[in-house]
């Protein structure tokens, strides 16, 4: 299988190992993040003229879904500003490892954390499934109301900070962040990975500085021992192990797309993440881009009896109906044996499908709303500024004729990609991939009907 270590290229290695580049990006993004909170709160309440809405939910989201995740996996987590204040407080140091009065070898006690480990029953992504669903249910308001976006961003920053004071490492990122959950899921499809080179070196390595930290750097903030990495899901690409490994046994590699998906999922929380993401994309496409205005109104009418009906339908479709149909189709093939392991394993095929559904959905609203970027860049608060002379741009959908072919390609591509994964899983189980392909085909046809 093709693999190429890009971290061996001197210029790339220098950029990845040097903390300043990452810190500058993170600091700029933290400033932008704080500015978004501020803009959302004191800027214009008109969403499409407020920086927080336009640059978060149009620019950042599109960048994340169309480029960052499919091509670079968890690259966003690598520069995400949310953990920066918590890391600072936790380590007492912003740039590198905790500064010690004496060499680490003489002062091991000072590295002992006062923080607790994340509770064992919660060391999974069920909470992330929950936080994403929570945001998804309120997204009609969050995505259009600057003050609500501001509150959500501020809450995430404060929650991450509070969690970092109580629990070790980046527990918020790993177990709570609603975005981190799906980035982890879809990062498995990306053609990039951080892995060790030689397991023997790790096994014999004294002190495991990649996990425990050393003078050269801090221990993995994602609570991952790199030697155990088999997929991208939980490696936040903070690159710290690249800096701490005394044997230079860590590398960042290019690889074929969806390499991680060759190992079928075995965890129910990850399986449900696939359904949460797939179902959300389908419901969003129907409610926000479909022709049923009354559904959209329901989604916006928060806390009314009708909205509770919408919320219930939203959750039941995602958490019950879609998995039940999937399971029902799987049960048609009796050779699959243990239905739970088949359920989790075959749900791996939903990962590329869901990713391409989100890409198709995002293409639609990004190109429809891209002209707001110029308006908001010049007048981020909606106060009538014109910093770059683009404030008077008139909203105009862009490249609309290109959307149907692009979306069709994304959806059909996703179907074929997921069929390929289903066939690989089926070979492992010596069973038929047809039920899963059928499920994916039905879902794709629904998306084609809704979007194209």
């Amino acid at each position: 299988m093709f693999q190429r270590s890009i971290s061996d290229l001197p210029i790339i290695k220098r950029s990845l190992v040097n903390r300043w580049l990452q810190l500058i990006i993170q600091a700029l993004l933290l400033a932008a993040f704080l500015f978004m909170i501020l803009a959302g709160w004191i800027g214009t309440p008109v969403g499409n003229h407020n920086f927080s809405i336009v640059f978060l939910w149009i620019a950042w989201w599109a960048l994340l879904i169309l480029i960052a995740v499919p091509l670079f996996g968890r690259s966003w987590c690598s520069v995400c500003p949310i953990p920066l204040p918590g890391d600072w407080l936790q380590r007492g140091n912003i740039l590198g490892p905790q500064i010690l009065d004496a060499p680490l070898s003489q002062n091991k006690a000072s590295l002992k954390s006062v923080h607790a480990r994340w509770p064992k029953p919660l060391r999974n992504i069920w909470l992330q499934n929950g936080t994403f669903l929570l945001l998804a249910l309120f997204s009609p308001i969050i995505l259009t109301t600057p003050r609500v976006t501001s509150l959500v961003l501020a809450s995430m920053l404060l929650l991450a900070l509070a969690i970092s004071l109580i629990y070790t490492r980046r527990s918020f990122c790993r177990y709570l962040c609603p975005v981190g959950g799906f980035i982890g899921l879809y990062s498995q499809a990306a053609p990039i990975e951080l892995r060790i080179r030689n397991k023997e070196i790790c096994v014999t390595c004294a002190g495991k500085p990649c996990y425990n930290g050393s003078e050269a750097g801090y221990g993995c903030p994602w609570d991952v021992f790199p030697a155990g990495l088999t997929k991208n899901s939980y490696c936040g690409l903070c690159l710290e192990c690249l800096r701490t490994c005394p044997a230079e046994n860590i590398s960042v590699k290019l690889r074929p797309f969806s390499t991680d998906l060759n190992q079928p999922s075995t965890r129910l929380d990850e399986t449900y993440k696939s359904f949460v993401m797939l179902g959300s994309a389908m419901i969003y496409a129907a409610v926000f881009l479909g022709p049923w205005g009354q559904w959209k109104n329901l989604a916006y009418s928060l806390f009314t009896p009708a909205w509770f009906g919408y919320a219930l339908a939203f959750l039941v479709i995602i958490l019950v109906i879609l998995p039940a149909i999937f399971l029902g189709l799987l049960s048609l093939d009796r050779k699959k044996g243990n239905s739970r392991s088949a359920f989790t394993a075959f749900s791996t095929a939903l990962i590329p499908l869901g990713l391409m559904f989100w890409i198709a959905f995002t293409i639609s609203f990004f190109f429809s709303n891209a002209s707001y970027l110029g308006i908001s860049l010049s007048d981020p608060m909606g106060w009538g500024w014109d910093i770059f002379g683009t404030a008077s741009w008139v909203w105009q959908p862009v490249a609309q004729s290109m959307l149907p072919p692009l979306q069709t390609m994304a959806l059909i591509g996703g179907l074929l990609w997921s069929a390929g994964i289903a066939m690989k899983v089926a070979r492992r189980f010596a069973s038929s991939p047809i039920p899963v392909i059928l499920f994916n085909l039905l879902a794709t046809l629904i998306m084609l009907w809704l979007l194209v």
Partner: protein
Amino acid sequence: MKSELHPHPDQSKSRSLTRQETAARVVVFVMSLAAIAIPVSLHYSNKQLEIHARIAETSGWDPDVIRLEVGQPLHMRFTSDDVVHGFAVGQKFLDPVDILPGIWTDLTLTFDKPGVYTFYCTRWCGINHWRMRGTLEVGEPVAAAPSAAEPLYLSLGIDLDKPHLSPVVPDTIPSAWKGAGLLASLPDAAKYQSVDYYLTNSPFQVYENLGNRHLSAEQRWAIVAAIWKANTSPGALVEGRQLFAQNCSACHGTGGGGDGVFADDLGNLTDYEDTSQHSIKMPAHLSDPKSILGASPALLQGKILRGGMGTGMPMWGVIFTEEQVWNLVTYIYSFQFEYDSLLS
């Protein structure tokens, strides 16, 4: 092997790390501070008069009271925080200015006379659109002087809220053209042709007054139509129609049938009808002959000036000039009479 790769940091390296750490903290702190401090300071240093338009349920105009000096230009910046609104000042001939969401619109006004002016929304922004009003207080506040011309309904002592149904209505729409000759042939035509007579009598009262002559019902209604036509003009009807379309049709309907776009919304609010005295009253059917033929011009003027107390009908007295109100009154009567080519 480990010690070769990573020797313990010596003192100078430690100092260098500390310097780098300090620099890193400064970078993060300065960038974060700049992201917050610059916009906040710009926001609070802005001294321009900015007026935010919001639907009445949220806040209406903000601010809704503006003070200015006589003869001193007032520069205002408008924006809407929700939907499209419009800005106009009552009784001041000013083209309404559209106020678009997220867009700033500049306007400079100068007032030559002191007084309290009402500004209002000119776009149908919601069911409570008519509540979107504010005041421009020009010059020093003075004790309210009695109005130069008391509205006719007050001097006549007309009870605006008393039912005014016409007991009879014409079988067909009365033709002013047919009635003009009959009116001229009346021995006491001058009485019927006087403006005061027109203003103070309802069409039904005129019809009744004509009852002791040898005239058919159709002829009497035709004379009424001729009198009402004589008291209007093409210009008045055109302005009345325009005012009606801009300000009244959303509730009363373009044809006066009480079926405007907001009538359905008002209907949906009738659930509250029995729970308080503030019952929702559906818009009047201005095309209904029973209702309008029983109302004198003075009564209709009063209703427009004062508004429907306790209903959704706003007070227009501070918005329209007296002439505009009379033009609106003549337009409302035009639903009942055939004026031939007056409104083409």
